[in-house]
């Protein structure tokens, strides 16, 4: 079975926002959409599902043209084989959990009783045993999200659109459902699109990542690509890296009038330089030795993350360093303190913009 998705979508709300993106999702692969709030991710879902008419573009799923504005063609939502987990679930408030889950089966032609039976059988898998007869208003947030997930997955659609499907789940369930989802996704031969704000989730579940910002795709590639070579500040935040934009020449990058030595002497012109937080060292006294980049600055923020501490330093370059709690205690670092920053030239990777 083939089943690829090719989508070119251009749609706008008022003058404020315009989404103009293009995807190509081969069958059996998962694309993660990541992006800031309001970037247009949910709008992509609505457009693919047929809930928002698009202004211009063409969507082909498994050889079937879902939309083609040039031909004036737009399949209604119910004729697209698209399963959607909505960001805010949109469970039917008048139906019980079982009826919600069975809805798609009935709509796709299963008998009422058979559909309910399959739906009820699917509940345990989603951690919903015993909740089958509840109404959505009687569910907790996480339970409701699981119902939404179950409702979309049981119909086995040709395209799966998951809009932050795990956001409300507790750590345990999230891990379980991540596995369930990755098993499901592995069985499921169609393309799927996963929206998430959790980079880990994206890295774990997706074959390819699209970063959408302000209605446009700003970067796409493998998780590795994004992690190692983020192209925008948002992508750098995702990767947990520091991103600097500067001018390279002769093994130096000039960022906001500050010069950093880099290993790559061939780089020139505008470059994106990334530094991993763990590659940044902090010292009380001016460090000696190999690191070629050292300067003095003040601590802006100290955040304890369990066994790691993230420290943000201030101008001239706002960077985040990651150190151990032991180091923080040993150096007695706290906000406002003056510190020396050092970075080895080899830890700064620069790539043309």
């Amino acid at each position: 079975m083939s089943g690829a998705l090719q989508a070119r979508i251009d749609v706008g709300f008022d003058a404020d926002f315009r989404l103009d993106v293009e995807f190509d999702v081969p069958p059996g692969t998962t694309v993660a959409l990541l992006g800031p709030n309001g970037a247009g991710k949910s709008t992509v879902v609505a457009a693919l599902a047929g809930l928002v008419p698009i202004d211009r573009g063409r969507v082909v799923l498994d050889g079937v043209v879902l939309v083609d504005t040039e031909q004036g063609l737009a399949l209604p939502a119910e004729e697209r084989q698209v399963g959607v987990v909505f960001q805010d679930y949109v469970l039917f408030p008048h139906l019980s959990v079982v009826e919600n889950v069975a809805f798609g089966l009935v709509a796709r032609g299963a008998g009422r009783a058979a559909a309910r039976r399959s739906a009820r059988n699917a509940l345990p898998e989603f951690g919903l045993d015993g909740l089958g007869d509840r109404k959505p208003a009687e569910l907790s947030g996480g339970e409701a999200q699981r119902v939404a997930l179950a409702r979309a997955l049981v119909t086995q659609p040709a395209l799966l659109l998951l809009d932050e499907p795990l956001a409300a789940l507790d750590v345990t369930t999230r891990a379980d459902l991540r596995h369930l989802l990755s098993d499901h996704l592995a069985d499921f031969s169609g393309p799927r699109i996963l929206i998430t704000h959790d980079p880990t989730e994206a890295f774990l579940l997706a074959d390819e990542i699209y970063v959408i910002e302000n209605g446009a795709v700003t970067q796409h590639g493998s998780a590795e690509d994004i992690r190692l070579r983020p192209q925008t500040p948002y992508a750098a935040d995702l990767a947990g890296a520091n991103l600097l934009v500067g001018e390279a020449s002769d093994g130096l990058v000039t960022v906001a009038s500050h010069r950093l030595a880099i290993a790559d002497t061939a780089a020139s012109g505008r470059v994106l330089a990334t530094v991993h937080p763990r590659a940044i060292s902090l010292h009380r006294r001016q460090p000696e030795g190999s690191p070629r980049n050292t300067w003095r600055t003040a601590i802006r923020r100290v955040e304890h993350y369990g066994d790691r501490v993230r420290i943000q330093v201030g101008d001239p370059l706002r960077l985040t360093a990651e150190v151990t709690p032991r180091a923080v205690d040993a150096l007695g670092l706290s906000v406002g303190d003056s510190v020396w920053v050092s970075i080895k030239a080899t830890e700064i990777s620069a790539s043309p913009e």
Partner: protein
Amino acid sequence: MRSRTPWPLVALAVAAVLLFALPLFGLLVRTPWSGLGEILGSEVARDALWLSLVTSLGATIVALILGLPLAWLLARIEFPGRALVRGLVLLPLVLPPVVGGAALLFTFGRRGLIGGPIDELTGLVLPFSTWGAVLAATFVAMPFLVITMEGALRNLDTRYEGAASTLGAGRWMVLRRVTLPLVAPSLAAGLVLTWARALGEFGATITFAGNLQGRTQTLPLAVFVALESDRDVAVALSLVMVAISLTVLVALRHRWWGAS
């Protein structure tokens, strides 16, 4: 929240209830309880009761079949003249019943715009027939369904319908399994108003359909005629109507209205 009783609201609501309850009480006080059984057992009363049930139910069904689509269109589709159509729907409410009935005669009567051709083609004469009584009741009662449902459909979040369609539900299934259940309380309200109005319908029926026992003489018509000859019969028949509507509503309590 739940525990506090809002006294000013309760006071106003009690005043409203009294406005409805006291006249009923006044009516009950003047009711000739002794002769009641005999009056209600009479053939005239039984015929009228039966016809009232038939025509009011018939009108409600027709109103549902025609009125619901109209309400849906008014609420969901933008089309030129929408406000005008909505105004048109209210006509039967504001037209004096006799005028409304006369207007129906001009249209659906033997010599009417539509009635003439119908008569020629099918031999069906609406006036003086039970169909005519149903038509008159529908004309008068349908606006309640249309207007109530338009309001309810406008209030409804369309995202549920969207979600249903992504699950593969066609328009009809969406309507039946999502839209209507979600507006059930308003639909119940609209149907009850429609049915009650049809049950109480008098003016247009008398003018359009005439008054023939067993064919077009519904309870309100029987009451009107009885008022001319025997007031006791009129009061007794009125109480039958009160009893029917109370019974139906109390019985509907759980089924339709939904628990709160």
